[in-house]
């Protein structure tokens, strides 16, 4: 019945050449812009290395490799040796690992293998929140809560039992290598838990079933089959935690005592590379002093790159298990 409406003009069969040109140009532009953005990473890395190198030329010329092996840090006399800081960095990091790895691994095993699913997800969420707490907050609590607790309870108990050991000798004034190690341990535990847990969860169920079917208890299955299977990834998580511990600045500088001396006792104050840069950079008088601090930054940079590189390799290696023969 109705009137025949005028048919719509047919859509153009082919887009016009200029449209296509604009399309292609749009793609090219997008490609270029995003490429530039991605390349910024290289730019930053190169600039970083360049600055660290060029702005540390004075101490490198003056001290050479001895910089790393000299234990005297005396800005007034113009003597700059990195050894106290390398020592402090290494000792605090290693001690922090000794404390945090068993606890972190234990928690990861509980969360991945032994705990019921609900408990596991809530606890994992909480522990991952811990990783988000800023370093300066740990430092604040370190000074006001941890150090007094160490002073009044932990260290006296330590001295009573193990005080004969040289590492626990001498007076304890609160700020010390020991305190810094404990704070560091608390800070890196969440990383160990988080990464190890994921690595454990990635172990195939068939492995667990095979072990259980042979009459193992759950713990035996976990310890003798699952953990060995995931061992490379677990080592990776430890290296990651180590890399973090090496670079931690604020919490350490607030509880370590900031003293550039190498001493046997863990209860004595000390210094780390990151801590000395943080506390003395703005006070540095003269180019040599400042550049010595920058050279310390270079050392720290090299160290963390190395450790992180190893960590990445280990974590990647827990993918498909390759035959060892």
């Amino acid at each position, binding site marked *: 019945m109705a009137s025949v409406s005028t048919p719509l003009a047919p859509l153009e069969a082919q887009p016009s050449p200029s449209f296509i040109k604009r399309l292609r140009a749009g793609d090219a532009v997008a490609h270029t812009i995003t490429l530039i953005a991605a390349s910024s990473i290289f730019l930053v890395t190169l600039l970083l290395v360049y600055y660290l190198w060029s702005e540390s030329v004075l101490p490198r010329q003056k001290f050479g490799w001895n910089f790393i092996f000299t234990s005297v840090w005396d800005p007034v006399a113009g003597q700059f040796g990195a050894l106290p800081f390398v020592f402090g960095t290494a000792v605090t990091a290693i001690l922090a690992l000794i404390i945090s790895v068993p606890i972190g691994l234990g928690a990861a095993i509980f969360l991945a293998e032994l705990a019921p699913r609900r408990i596991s997800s809530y606890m994992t969420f909480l522990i991952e929140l811990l990783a988000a707490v800023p370093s300066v907050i740990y430092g604040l609590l370190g000074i006001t809560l941890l150090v007094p607790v160490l002073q009044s309870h932990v260290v006296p108990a330590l001295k009573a039992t193990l005080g004969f050991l040289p590492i626990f000798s001498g007076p304890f004034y609160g700020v010390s290598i020991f305190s810094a190690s404990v704070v560091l341990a608390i800070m890196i535990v969440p990383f160990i838990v988080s990464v190890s847990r994921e690595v454990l969860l990635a172990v195939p169920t068939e492995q667990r079933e*095979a072990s259980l079917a*042979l*009459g*193992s208890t759950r713990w035996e299955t976990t310890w*003798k089959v699952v953990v060995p299977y995931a061992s490379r990834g677990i080592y990776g998580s430890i290296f990651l935690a180590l890399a973090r511990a090496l670079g931690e600045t604020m919490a350490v500088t607030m509880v370590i005592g900031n003293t550039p001396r190498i001493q046997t006792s863990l209860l004595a104050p000390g210094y780390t590379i990151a801590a000395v840069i943080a506390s003395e950079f703005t006070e540095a008088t003269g180019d040599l002093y400042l550049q010595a601090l920058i050279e310390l930054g270079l050392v720290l940079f090299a160290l963390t790159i190395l450790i992180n590189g190893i960590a990445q390799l280990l974590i990647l290696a827990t993918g498909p298990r390759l*035959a060892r*023969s």
Partner: protein
Amino acid sequence: MTSVTTPMFTPAPPTGESKPREHSEVKLRTEDLSFYYGSFKALHGVTLEILERRITALIGPSGCGKSTFLRALNRISESIRNSRIEGRITLDDADVLKMDVTALRRRVGMVFQRPNPFPKSIFDNVAYGVRVNGLADQRSLKEVVERSLHRAALWDEVKDKLHDSALALSGGQQQRLCIARALAIDPEVLLLDEPCSALDPIATAKIEDLLFNLKDQCTIVIVTHNMQQAARVADFTGFFLMGKLIEFDRTEIMFKKPSKKETEDYITGRFG
């Protein structure tokens, strides 16, 4: 058996061997066994008797519950969340569901569908169950491992490389290794969940042969989606469909003259 009226499948020869056996004892029995994944009822009141030192095959289409049934027998299904078992399972008249589960699994071993050797050496794989259960000291351990590898028809192929990684073996060898590992703790029952489904025909034939040889020492329950395999290997066969045990009888009866229509339909290939 080459006459014209040869049945479609050549069933296993009747079990008349060196020892005359009129009655076989019942090794494993289930009474009204039901299994739930959450609210889904995967097994509906299965009542079944598995005779000792025989090979019992469980067949049926995908999803019919035969694997679920098998995994209930050694309670490996317990680790699935929200699962529930109802009914009774007895091993030599002892209640399986009330037993200590690690003791149960020492007596009822399992081989899985895909080979799952541990990333350890061949020796350590076989020795694992023995060590964990404290069944042999250092000296006898070597003998136990060797004996198990013989029983699994793998010894000749690996005797020179016992300390190499198990993962370097082929698929068929890995599965025989898993069988050796399960046998090392001397189980009374061996459960096999489609053990040959990931293997080629030659590897499959090797495993079927070794099961035949194992029968004397061990009660064997094998789930298979391959009817010819059941016909070749098993003394008894049970047919599962949609969580129910439809029929259970001696293999030759199941394949030649099944009493239920569903069984006949499945065996003749009307569905599958």
